[in-house]
């Protein structure tokens, strides 16, 4: 049995310790907002926060997540920055197919949490690991700037 702290809640999980956090979230805990894209840390669809830092949950074994503070797309709205990012995503109509957007929102929220006024170059550097196959990158940049502005108020 492994104890996890996800979105402020403590949960017990029965799964093999090498099970990637991604599949623990999806299959054991029924939290399907975090997506499976590549299984190799190459696309960012599975991005969650571990102690506030964006990580690829497909590369984090359950054993390594024990005790850490984990935030997923299901819990990010409770964060002021996360809520602003999601609102900007909706306002600017960022998503197309939408499959990568949980990961994009998580990466964008982590960026704004440490850099409230990112430049395009900052955004590119922070989100280069998050593939959007539909190509919503221009709107992702616009939405991050929009969220940054809304957080100034």
């Amino acid at each position, binding site marked *: 049995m492994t104890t996890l702290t996800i979105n402020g809640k403590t949960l017990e999980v029965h799964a093999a310790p090498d099970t990637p956090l991604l599949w623990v979230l999806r299959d054991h805990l029924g939290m*399907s907002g975090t997506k499976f894209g*590549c299984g190799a840390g190459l*696309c960012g669809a599975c991005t969650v926060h571990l102690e506030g830092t964006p990580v690829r949950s497909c590369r984090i074994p359950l054993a390594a997540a024990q005790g850490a503070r984990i935030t997923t797309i299901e819990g990010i709205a409770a964060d002021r920055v996360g809520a602003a990012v999601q609102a900007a995503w*909706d306002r600017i109509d960022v998503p197309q*197919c939408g499959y990568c*957007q949980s990961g994009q929102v998580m990466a964008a929220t982590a960026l704004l949490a440490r850099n409230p006024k990112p430049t395009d170059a900052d955004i590119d550097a922070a989100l280069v690991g998050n593939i959007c196959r539909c190509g919503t990158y221009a709107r992702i940049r616009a939405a991050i700037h929009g969220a940054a502005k809304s957080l100034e108020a």
Partner: protein
Amino acid sequence: MNAIVKASRRDFLKGSAALGGGLIVGFYLPPSGIAADLKPVAANAWVRISPDNQVTLVCHRNEMGQDVYTSLALLVAEELNVDVNKVAIEQAPVDPVYINSLLGAQITGGSTSIRDAWVKLREAGATARVLLTSAAAQRWSVPPAECVAANGYVSHAGGRRASYGELAGAAAQLPAPQNVALKKPAEFTLIGKQRHRLDSAVKARGQAQYGLDVSMPGMVYASLEQCPVPGGKVAAVDGARAKALPGVLAVVDIGEGVAVVADHYWTAKTAREALVITWDYGPGSTLDTVQIRATLREGAHRDGAIVRQAGDAAAALKSAARTVSAEYHSQLLAHATLEPMNCLALVSERGCDIWTSTQFPQGAQGVAAARSGAPAAQTRIWPQFIGGGFGRRLDVDFIGQAAAIAAAVPGKPVKLIWTREDDTRHDFYRPASFHTLAGGLDAQGKLVAFDYKMVSSSITNRMFPGVVKNDLDPFMTEGSANLAYEVPNAMQRVVIQEYGLRSGYWRSVSHALNAFAIESFFDELAHAAGRDAIAFRLELLGKLPRQQAVLERAAAESGWGKPLPAGTALGVAMMESYETHQALVARVSKSGKRLRLERLVYVVDPGVAVHPDQIVAQIQSGAVTGLINTLRSKITVRDGRIEQSNFDDFPLLRITQMPRIDVIVMQGGDKPGGIGEVGVPLTAPAVANAVFALTGKRVRSLPLADAGVEFV
């Protein structure tokens, strides 16, 4: 929005067999938690109005990012006079009424959704409005002409007012009106004016339910080891070691592979590595990329079928003042949808139920019935949000696999999930192609002769063989049959040449293949004639004013013909596709040894713009797909095996590579053209033409990186 999020959990159209067509009363089972005696009433196959005045669009096309949920809802809401932002969306089941008239099957593809629905869904909305108005008029014993239906209510000058929901039951009993009048474009309040997607919020919150996200009590998982050579089969399997692992429930040989079924996905995936399989690789085991190119080149010696003919191209080429000839080649590509192929299947005494992301629910039903053994009438498809289609989900292979696996463990819902590596290695690949071109210029530098041959694999012969007649596959002639240029002597041919690897429809299909060859070659012709590339093209567009207009606008917007910064150049390409005219100007610059793609300026004229902001989004999206085709991505084959596996060796465009993309939307027609694929085909020729203008290097083969042309 709850309807979108949890649509699959509703048994919302159990009575779908009753939806035979026209106006019917739908049989609707409400979501759990709502009193079962609540009986919402449908106006027709697309529109449902419940007593609490909730208007629902039964969306008959599948949402994969292209915005059908909102754009189709706009068509209905415009005529029904309701707030589109309050319309709920449910995904339609398989039914003949939902067949795409432009494709002859219940398919989402071919940039047809809006074109097919343009009249149908506005009529559906208008019909419902007329019925609701009549029901109100009857209830109040007043003439219908004195009643006004607006914003979800019918009202009468005398002050009476009833919601659509209150009237829906009575309206459904009335005979269908004939020839309902539709609004004139000047009367539109939503079409062309909306600026919001109904599914943005759920997607931003991770609440949209894709095929991969569907969950059921007692669900188990499958991971499938497929023959490494596409088309090969299992000869023998020893599954004892895998089966002995904790959590493993079954090992199932389904012919093209062996599935491990387990209590969790990770258990199934790791246990799969313990399978010992002997393969019958079949005839494909010696195939490689060099051989594929050689086979296509050989195909060019065949006559093939005539696509388009004018005058006498052979004679005109002989007598031309100057001739130019060239050969072009396009590579194999994977679709690489971000959501890997997956399918949840349940085979039980009720038949077969399938929850999946698909562009082809009708095909899904057929293959699921065939491979589960359930009758088609008891095979139900529950389409979900699609995490990327691009044509990959027109194929239903993974759905058949899930049905076959589920049939071996009846009563258990089984979710088959491919790995990314499975997805890359077992795709239906965008065909490679080979093109020969020749052009003849007269003494004034005007094009007088054009000879063209395109050689490639026929996807349609595999999927819809009846459509290919006399060796003419209409999906191979896209961009050739509708060539915008008027050349007095032209011979355009197409040759179906199979090369031993399965091929599939890839966003914009042959438009991208033909446009790269033709639009690059027209640049070569202009250069040979000593003419400006846009002036040379404009001269050949005499009968197409809309095409001229987009080209001239692209020239103006991109600064064509004006001084450019040093180390910068422009390239142009244009075409008509899916009844939409477009032109693209690409700007590239030098960045050390590499090049930088600075800007793409698209001008598109789809005739009528239903949801303009999403047209911009789709063109940008098409551009990104086009850049995957252009820059460095490719699939290669060795010993019958696909050499790429994941996003490290099959790269997709990342945010750092995203150029500035400007999209100008013109509306020069009276009905909408297609949009979803329009942005794709011109990036390769426009960028390659800009590369030539900048460096003098003419690249005739994709991806550009193979010719040493690397972009930052």
